[in-house]
């Protein structure tokens, strides 16, 4: 019998709050973390999109000067979330060789990369900072965390666009099941609120342009949704085998019952409209969890608020759950947080875990007029959930990546 894997620590810094407690409180209160960008570069570059989900607490308020100077903003968010999760789990006296990190990013150190290029062009090669390469590499956040918590059991980075955070958590399961590792710090981060990625996402018409009403812009499943809203931050989870957690008397939030990853091989950015790859990921994850569709009582959807994406996910869910789907409460939390890209799956996994622990599904704000083609039971105000249930969190990414994790209520 394979060991259960459990969640024993949570950490986050998001557009809703600088930690898990404040983020969760704001989410349940139906707040929006989206606001107009005050940076001068928005007007200078005449960006077509002028708002985003900025981290509620600036990393510089939490970290040391040296940390902010030597880490890309993505790694700064990662470190903040990881430290909270690690302290929350109160991991002590574990051999470093049995601790691993699985920490994702969608884009990597894009601020560092582009700043360094500007410096090269304006001031020449001698002015390019010596830390540029370790700061921009996509494994930078995972490596920074690994150094911080002294993880010597392997530090890896899943990179699969907006599926990255969920994929990292799924990868952690494999590490823990191998028996080589006792504890994994898993999650994802993103800090891509730089004019270039903003311009690039806008150029592909992926971003909402509701500049006059930023807090209403992220509106999954609403008939007037017009794109996603960029968000930044990070989420981190401490995962370990149940025996290990019980032996050290750790508090347990939920069981991480399974994860699965599939790919569409259909189109580089468009989701497969039939959703077969996404559906396969859900089914595979449920099979690994020894569960059936009847066990699923809550879904944290990917639901980015793009016209095409939301409906494709609905079709995928319909393939899996059929007429059972109408009875499952679905939360689309990007309505409040915006889309954290590589960090999205991590914070949504945290929301799913807390939904099980607190027995409440978080609300989906801005659903004024539900798309008649999407017949989901969307949770619009906090809704009570039963005990002893299963919940899933979905993430999909450019490149045709589908990742799903399954959590189960934990009771001894």
């Amino acid at each position, binding site marked *: 019998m394979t060991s259960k894997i459990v969640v024993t620590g949570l950490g986050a810094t998001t557009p809703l709050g600088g930690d898990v407690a404040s983020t969760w409180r704001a989410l349940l209160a139906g707040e929006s973390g989206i606001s107009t960008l005050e940076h001068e570069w928005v007007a200078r570059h005449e960006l077509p999109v002028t708002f985003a989900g900025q981290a509620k607490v600036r990393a510089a308020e939490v970290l040391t*000067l*040296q940390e902010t100077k*030597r880490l890309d903003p993505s790694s700064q968010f990662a470190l903040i979330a990881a430290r909270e999760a690690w302290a929350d789990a109160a991991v002590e006296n574990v051999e470093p060789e049995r601790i691993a990190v699985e920490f994702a990013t969608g884009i990597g150190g894009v601020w560092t990369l582009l700043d360094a290029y500007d410096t090269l062009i304006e001031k020449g090669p001698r*002015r390019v900072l*010596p*830390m540029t390469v370790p700061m921009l590499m996509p494994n930078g956040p995972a490596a920074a965390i690994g150094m911080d918590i002294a993880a010597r059991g392997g530090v890896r980075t899943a990179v699969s666009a907006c599926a990255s955070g969920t994929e990292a958590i799924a990868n952690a399961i494999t590490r823990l099941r191998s028996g080589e590792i006792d504890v994994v710090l898993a999650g994802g981060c993103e800090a891509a609120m730089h004019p270039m990625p903003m311009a690039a996402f806008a150029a592909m018409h992926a971003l909402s342009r509701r500049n006059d009403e930023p807090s209403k812009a992220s509106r999954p499943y609403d008939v007037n949704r017009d794109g996603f809203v960029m968000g930044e931050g990070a989420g981190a989870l401490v995962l370990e085998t149940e025996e290990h957690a019980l032996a050290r008397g750790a508090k347990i939030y939920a069981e991480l019952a399974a994860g699965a990853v599939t790919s569409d091989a259909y189109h580089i950015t468009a989701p497969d409209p039939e959703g077969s790859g996404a559906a396969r990921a859900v089914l595979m994850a449920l099979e690994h969890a020894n569960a059936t569709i009847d066990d699923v009582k809550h879904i944290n959807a990917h639901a980015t608020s793009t016209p095409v994406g939301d409906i494709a996910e609905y079709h995928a869910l319909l393939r899996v759950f059929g007429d059972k789907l109408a009875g499952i409460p679905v939360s689309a939390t990007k309505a409040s947080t915006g889309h954290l890209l590589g960090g999205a799956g991590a914070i949504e996994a945290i929301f799913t875990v807390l939904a099980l622990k607190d027995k409440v599904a978080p609300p989906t704000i801005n659903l004024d007029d539900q798309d008649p083609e999407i017949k989901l039971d969307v949770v619009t105000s906090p809704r009570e959930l039963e005990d002893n249930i299963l919940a899933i969190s979905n993430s999909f990414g450019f490149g045709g990546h589908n990742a799903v994790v399954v959590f189960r209520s934990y009771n001894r």
Partner: protein
Amino acid sequence: MALSHDEVLAGLAEIVNEETGIDTASVLAEKSFTNDLDIDSISMMTIVVNCEDKFGVKIPDEEVKSLLTVGDAVNFIVAAQG
């Protein structure tokens, strides 16, 4: 116009503070960058290029190794201003 020793020291102290957070009052001529101020080679490289910008001098890489103390750096910069 060339700056005095004191002016260069004050300017260098600001650069060190900006890069490392070390209090400007601790940046004294007799202090060693590595042993006393605990500044590593990565920060040192940034401090060097920022000094070049601020004081309009060139500090060649081979010269940096011999600038062990704050005073060594101040003397070099004052002399290099010509």
